[in-house]
């Protein structure tokens, strides 16, 4: 029997083989073995580790029926120019079969500044839609019944007062708060870590988040209050394991803050959701998503003592990696996006955004957006992939990789704990340094051609000429938006605005929940920037020390 172990037969043969001169690590630099075998599954395929779909610890998916029950939501993030232009894009996407809306705001809005602010010059309507007051929210969703579609809003620093404008608009449409469905990104921690769009220091921002969570638990129960996001952390250059660990650590921090504010974990945890990147390393991404579900479920159950199984679920949105797109031969991005989207589906995502091929060049054109959405439809309806739940479950390689990512994340959690937690680690620049280093190492690997990007550092097409249509934002958008803002300011009851803002500043210095105050400000057409300023009086501003 001694000679019949086939692995023992294979190993020396592999050892004698001539191998390609290539870097056989993952895109994150993770060493990979040439072959994984049944030995790697030891301890990893039991019910307490792998389990069943819809069963703890959810490694195989959050629902018992996964995509046989319901396909993922195809949710293309979009917004540009004025509220009218974005409204027209939403109607176009709904007509093409998209099932949820996702709002991209422009940079001034993301920073809580009005379109006529000095730092807004040149930025209005460029990377998303500008929202200054409730009037813009009304135009943005004109003819779209908010009680019937689910709406996701990518907004963080001013999330609470953008949401107040959204709620005020729902009131005007006659849609009851209890029936509203959607998601706010509302994840300020990853702003300090990666995306860099904050207004106040971390603690007041975290207080606004717990206020919003408590308000929604009482009044908007179907709303997902935070989309804890790894996407931006990865785009900023982190590895897969850093994305996984930093994101979940942020999620734990929100749980701890809400519990400290007096909430019961089962009252808010079911409304937390996640947002991951799908990068080019196919299996590593799938393993990362599977590991995320397992880690979250274990922590929520064991450490935070959540009793409701709904609190244990790591439900997540996936977006394909913007940073993997190339300006060179942009049509190739269709292929990259398809592979990344497939990893999101095999990873068990609840919703998915596929990037458009032209996004390394400009905002996407309508043609490119349609191809991106069609890519998801091909995976959903032609490939047969969604027919079987977690089809890679039990794969020697994928299970081993899932476990390795989980172990690496646990080591990073430990390191964050040693630094005193997420907020002290932010203040010490820990995350920022780790990401900057990983980004530089990856860039060096490209530079040395140890990693290859087709059409960029290898297989280049020297005669390439660009032949795809590029969307341009008219410079008149800024003028029109500023004019509309000034018209609203001339028309509204300015006395009521002053009173609401003064009441907000006063309440910010007390522990009272600020959401009703923010709603009062929104209803009387206080601007985004005025509301930010009223809160800044109480909270102060935050500056980061530039490091590279």
């Amino acid at each position, binding site marked *: 029997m001694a000679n019949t172990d086939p692995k023992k037969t294979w190993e020396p043969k592999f050892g004698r083989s001539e191998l390609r001169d290539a870097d056989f690590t993952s895109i994150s630099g993770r060493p990979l073995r040439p072959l994984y075998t049944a030995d790697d599954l030891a301890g990893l395929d039991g019910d307490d580790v792998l389990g069943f779909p819809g069963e703890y610890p959810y490694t195989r998916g959050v629902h018992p029926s996964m995509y046989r029950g319901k396909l993922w939501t195809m949710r293309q993030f979009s917004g540009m120019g004025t509220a009218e232009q974005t409204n027209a894009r939403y109607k176009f996407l709904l007509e093409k079969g998209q099932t949820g809306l996702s709002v991209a705001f422009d*940079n*001034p809005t*993301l*920073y809580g*500044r009005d379109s006529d602010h*000095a*730092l*807004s*010059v*040149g*930025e209005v309507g*460029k*990377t998303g839609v500008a929202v200054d007051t409730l009037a813009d929210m009304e135009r943005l969703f004109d003819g779209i019944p908010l009680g019937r579609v689910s709406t996701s809003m990518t907004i963080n620093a001013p999330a609470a007062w953008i949401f107040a404008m959204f709620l005020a608009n729902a009131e005007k449409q006659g849609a009851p708060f209890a029936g509203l469905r959607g998601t706010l990104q509302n994840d300020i921690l990853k*702003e300090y870590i990666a*995306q*860099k*769009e904050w207004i106040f220091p971390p603690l007041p921002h975290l207080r606004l988040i717990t206020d919003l969570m408590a308000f929604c638990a009482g009044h908007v129960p179907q709303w997902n209050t935070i989309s804890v996001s790894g996407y931006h952390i990865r*785009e*900023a*250059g982190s590895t897969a394991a850093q994305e996984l660990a930093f994101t979940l650590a942020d999620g734990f921090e929100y749980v701890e803050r809400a519990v400290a504010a007096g909430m019961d974990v089962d009252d808010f945890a079911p409304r937390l959701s996640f947002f991951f990147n799908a990068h080019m390393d196919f299996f590593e991404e799938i393993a990362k998503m599977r590991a995320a579900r397992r880690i979250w479920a274990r922590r929520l159950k064991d450490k935070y003592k959540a009793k409701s199984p709904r609190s244990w679920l790591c439900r997540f949105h996936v977006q394909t990696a913007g*940073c993997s*797109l*190339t*300006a*060179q031969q942009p049509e190739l991005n269709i292929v990259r996006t398809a592979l990344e989207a497939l990893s999101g589906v095999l990873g068990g995502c609840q919703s998915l955004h596929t990037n458009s091929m032209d996004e*390394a*060049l*400009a*905002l996407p054109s309508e043609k490119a957006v349609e191809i991106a959405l069609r890519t998801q439809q091909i995976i959903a309806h032609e490939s047969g992939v969604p027919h079987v739940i977690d089809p890679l479950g039990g794969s020697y390689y994928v299970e081993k990789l899932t476990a390795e990512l989980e172990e690496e994340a646990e080591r990073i959690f430990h390191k964050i704990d040693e630094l005193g937690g997420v907020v002290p680690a932010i203040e010490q620049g820990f995350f920022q340094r780790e990401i*900057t280093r990983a*980004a*530089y190492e990856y*860039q060096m690997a*490209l*530079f040395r051609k140890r990693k290859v*990007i087709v*059409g*960029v*550092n290898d297989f280049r097409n020297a005669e390439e000429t*660009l032949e795809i249509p*590029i969307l*341009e*934002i008219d410079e008149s958008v800024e003028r029109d938006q500023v004019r509309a803002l000034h018209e609203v300011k001339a028309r509204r009851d300015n006395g009521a605005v002053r009173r609401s803002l003064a009441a907000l500043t006063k309440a910010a210095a007390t522990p009272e929940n600020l959401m009703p105050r923010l709603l009062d400000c929104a209803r009387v057409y206080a601007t985004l920037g005025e509301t930010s300023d009223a809160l800044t009086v109480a909270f102060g501003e935050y500056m*980061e*020390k*530039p*490091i*590279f």
Partner: protein
Amino acid sequence: MADPIIKVIIAKPGLDGHDRGAKVVARALVEAGMEVVYLGLRQTPEAIVHAAVEEDVDVIGLSILSGAHMTHFRKVKELMDKEGLGDRLLTGGGIIPTKDQAKLAEAGIGRLFGPGDDLQTIIDYIRDWHRSHPR
């Protein structure tokens, strides 16, 4: 004779928080022997040019991925000319359509880099510019 050390400011003007490219380039320039002042995020054109005067830099590099490149590059160039820095290089990178790059070149702005341009190309460009523009 050794080349004099090239001094560069790297900055993110406006409200764009995408700083991965700026930081990678800043570090690559340092490793290539240049002196780099990284100003960081949310810089106004005035603050950037003020720092350039204070530090007496040879090169200003702006990173803009937010679509606001036409406004910011032109404004910084205008202020550089006004402050007597018309002989220094204004370059940068981001998501900048070819058509806009051509328009900015006409306004006296140097080469602009985009996704996929390698670090050596940027280093070589700055060194070549510096050699051919002694002051």
